[in-house]
């Protein structure tokens, strides 16, 4: 916002901006370490991006950042490493992502901690600021979203707040890079010691509590000399904070705090650790029984008092009629679900309609024209047939198909989805779906991880860290695969267009295909509820814990930025991954279709062997073989099926001719598949099986990393396959009964 950044000394501001060198990732060596902390959804990642020039994914919903991201910049000749932490309401970590934030602030020894504060909810945010102030003096408070605060009729006296907290307070709007120069200066001042935080102790504990703390601190200092904040640890131990007790018991408390050389400090002796816990337990006996409540209450009162002193009220409030009106539709009893489906259908319809033309253009360019051209080139340099076939008909063709099939839908779908995310729609979806998750014994935030799964299941599995109950988190991990991921969208969209959209008159084709894809996505959600329900009634027995979800205000999506980041980051990264997996898969397909055993190629043998099973499931051997070849990545299922169908269906496998392709558009693809014996049933079963089968290799690995359990990884891998086989078998038998 120009009104704010136009400082009287224009040249000065310019100069400072120039002195910021965005270094992006991994600085190697740095002069100081800065942590970004704050409540969820206050714009930490936006500040992080503004400082480092990185494009860490941002979105308008709480819990988006679950792991810490690192970046760097150079300012006034100093290299600064920045760590973006997951949002947390307090330092009493509940969930895995909050623990990351707490541990880093506590034991990571950042030189400066920037606490990003939502100016519209000062009171609640100050609670965390005060907690961090208790631990360290090296804090800078960044008052973000002051434009939104103004709309709410809130103005904050930053100078007064600075006095109250004893640390620099900078106002700004991170989305528009307002206030970044001032923030950099403040960070610099604190890091170099120019501005030394004043020792202020927010006196807020009763004398008896203070006495207990003073009694415990020397014991802690004795055993863990490296711990930077024994007072805080003492209070947490008196409060019987299980995480801190555990950190003391295992000695992790000492390990997390590194000494100045960066080496791990020696593990504290076991007797010492026991001594700390014993002392804490003894002192706790003397405290009043409602001690915990009193301490909590006092903490919130302190935040409330500070907020009341620095907020200037009486300003004119802007109307929030639009937000309220929109919410009354989007979360309505009657319209909530239909609107959700409609929005989803609209996104698919735009994707299907929009992707059709560029897809066939790419296919024409890369497959129809590119391949013969490469063959000509190869024969010009007299390449041996097997190398020519291996490289062009195997490796190149698989890659070309992946690009032609995947790039257009992704380039349309991702930006649309990101716009919805930026706008603030995802928490409303979570809210609408919560009651069903609750009935299934699952956590309401599973709806958010489900939405992440629509992008990528591996990302969805990591996102489950926002769920604090281990039981419910495990359910969310195991069932995330029922969210159709971007590797499977193209399959669904293509098959729906060819076989289901074609049933309708041509004007309605796109709509019918979109409806079919929405149907499959919905079935996935139903299966997610169903399997969550089964799990929480059997092996993961338990009741849903209470939960509350904040609905952030709607924010106008930043269209250009969204387009840029979602095309560059998400689309190209996913495409690159697909290509990486397509290259070896293409090679394998060419090899199995050109190595003959007993007169028939390996591919023919495998297809013939898998055919009976495939037919039982309404599909065929080609599809099953394609799924085996495509275990590394779902993205390449369709290209693999196409290549194998041509090969086996046309019976033109041998003689080193490789795989034949003479088509470019969706219509011709359909003809080809029909020639290969495909019916509507094949298409339906393929769509079902594409929804219900094992996760891709990346997701399986991620599940193992997150659960650290071979058992649950196996369950998560096999359960969907069993379901898929069952569903496809039943559909096929019923279908055949009706048809007969």
């Amino acid at each position, binding site marked *: 916002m120009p009104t704010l950044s136009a400082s009287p000394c224009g040249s000065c501001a310019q100069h400072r901006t120039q002195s910021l060198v965005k270094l992006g990732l991994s600085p190697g060596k740095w002069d100081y370490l800065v942590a970004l902390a704050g409540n969820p959804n206050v714009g930490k990642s936006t500040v992080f991006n503004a400082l480092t020039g990185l494009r860490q994914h941002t979105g308008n919903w709480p819990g988006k950042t679950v792991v810490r991201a690192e970046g760097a910049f150079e300012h006034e000749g100093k290299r600064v490493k920045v760590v973006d932490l997951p949002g947390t*309401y*307090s330092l*009493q970590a*509940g969930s895995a992502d909050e623990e990351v934030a707490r541990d880093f602030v506590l034991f990571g020894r950042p030189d400066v901690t920037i606490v990003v504060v939502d100016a*519209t*909810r000062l*009171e*609640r945010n100050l*609670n965390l600021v005060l907690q961090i102030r208790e631990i360290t003096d090296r804090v800078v408070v960044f008052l973000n979203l002051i434009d939104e605060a103004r709309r*709410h009729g*809130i103005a904050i006296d930053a100078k007064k707040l600075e006095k109250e907290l004893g640390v620099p307070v900078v106002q700004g709007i991170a989305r528009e890079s307002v206030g970044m120069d001032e923030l950099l200066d403040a960070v610099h001042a604190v890091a170099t010691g120019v501005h030394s935080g004043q020792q202020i102790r927010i006196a807020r504990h009763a004398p008896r509590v203070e006495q207990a703390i003073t009694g415990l601190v020397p014991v802690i200092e004795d055993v863990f000399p490296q711990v930077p904040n024994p007072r805080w640890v003492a209070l947490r131990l008196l409060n019987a904070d299980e995480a801190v007790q555990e950190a003391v018991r295992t000695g992790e408390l000492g390990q997390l705090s590194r000494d100045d050389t960066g080496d791990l400090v020696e593990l504290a002796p076991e007797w010492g650790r026991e001594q700390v816990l014993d002392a804490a337990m003894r002192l706790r006996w003397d405290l009043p029984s*409602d001690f*915990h*409540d009193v301490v*909590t*209450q006092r903490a*919130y009162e302190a935040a*409330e008092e500070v907020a009341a002193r620095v907020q200037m009220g009486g300003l004119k409030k802007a109307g929030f009629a639009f937000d*309220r009106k929109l*919410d*009354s539709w989007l*979360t*309505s*009893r*009657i319209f*909530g*679900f239909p609107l959700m489906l409609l929005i989803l259908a609209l996104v698919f319809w735009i994707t299907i309609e929009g992707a059709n033309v560029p897809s066939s253009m790419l296919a024409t360019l890369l497959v129809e024209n590119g391949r013969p051209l490469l063959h000509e080139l190869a024969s010009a340099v007299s390449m041996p047939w097997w190398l020519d076939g291996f490289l062009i008909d195997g490796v190149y063709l698989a890659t070309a198909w992946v690009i032609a099939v995947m790039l257009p839908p992704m380039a349309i779908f991702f930006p649309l989805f990101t716009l919805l995310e930026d706008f603030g729609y995802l*928490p409303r979806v979570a*809210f*609408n779906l*919560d*009651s*069903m998750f*609750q009935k299934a014994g699952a956590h*309401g935030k599973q709806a958010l991880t489900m939405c992440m799964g629509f992008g990528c299941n591996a990302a969805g599995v990591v996102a489950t860290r926002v769920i604090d109950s281990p039981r419910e988190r495990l359910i969310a991990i195991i069932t995330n695969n029922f969210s159709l991921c971007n590797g499977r969208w193209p399959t669904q969209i293509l098959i729906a267009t060819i076989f289901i959209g074609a049933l309708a008159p041509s004007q309605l084709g796109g709509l019918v295909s979109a409806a079919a894809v929405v149907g499959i996505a919905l079935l996935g959600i139903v299966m997610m509820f169903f399997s969550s329900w089964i799990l929480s009634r059997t092996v993961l027995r338990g009741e*849903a*814990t*209470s*939960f*509350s*979800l*904040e*609905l*952030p*205000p709607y924010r106008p999506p930043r269209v250009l930025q969204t387009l840029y980041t979602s095309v560059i980051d998400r689309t190209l990264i996913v495409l690159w991954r697909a290509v990486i997996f397509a290259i070896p898969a293409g090679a394998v397909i060419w090899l199995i279709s050109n190595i003959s055993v007993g007169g028939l190629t390996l591919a023919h043998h495998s297809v013939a062997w898998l055919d009976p099973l495939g037919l039982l499931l309404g599909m065929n051997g080609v599809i099953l073989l394609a799924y085996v070849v495509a275990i590394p990545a779902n993205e390449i299922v369709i290209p693999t099926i196409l290549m194998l169908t041509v090969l086996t269906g046309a019976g033109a496998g041998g003689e080193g001719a490789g795989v034949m392709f003479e088509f470019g558009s969706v219509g011709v693809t359909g003809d080809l598949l029909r020639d290969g014996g495909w019916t509507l049933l094949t298409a339906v079963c393929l769509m079902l099986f594409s929804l219900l089968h094992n996760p891709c290799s990346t997701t399986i690995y991620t599940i193992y990393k997150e659960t650290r359990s071979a058992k649950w990884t196996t369950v998560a891998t096999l359960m969907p396959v069993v379901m898929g086989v069952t569903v496809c078998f039943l559909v096929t038998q019923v279908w055949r009964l009706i048809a007969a």
Partner: protein
Amino acid sequence: MQLPTASTNASEQEFVELRLAQVPLRQTVELVRIDLPPEQAEPLLERGVLPGCRICPVRSSPSGDPIISIDGSLLAFRKETAACLCVRLITQFRDAG
């Protein structure tokens, strides 16, 4: 968790305590107490749901879960949670006192 009530004047004891789940939409009330075990009350406190604060149910979801407005932000609860929030009506009488 039994946090101390915001103010405990004898004259106010006559007010009937309600559960948030019983409060009609758009009726602003004052939170008295959260009847939940500490580990479930803590997340609410962290989000600014504190005894003494004013809350107003603004919407309810397709399944009857409330959305409340508190301190300018919107929070979604489950019905079961709303049933554990003890509230009282804010009347003109009390404001005058």
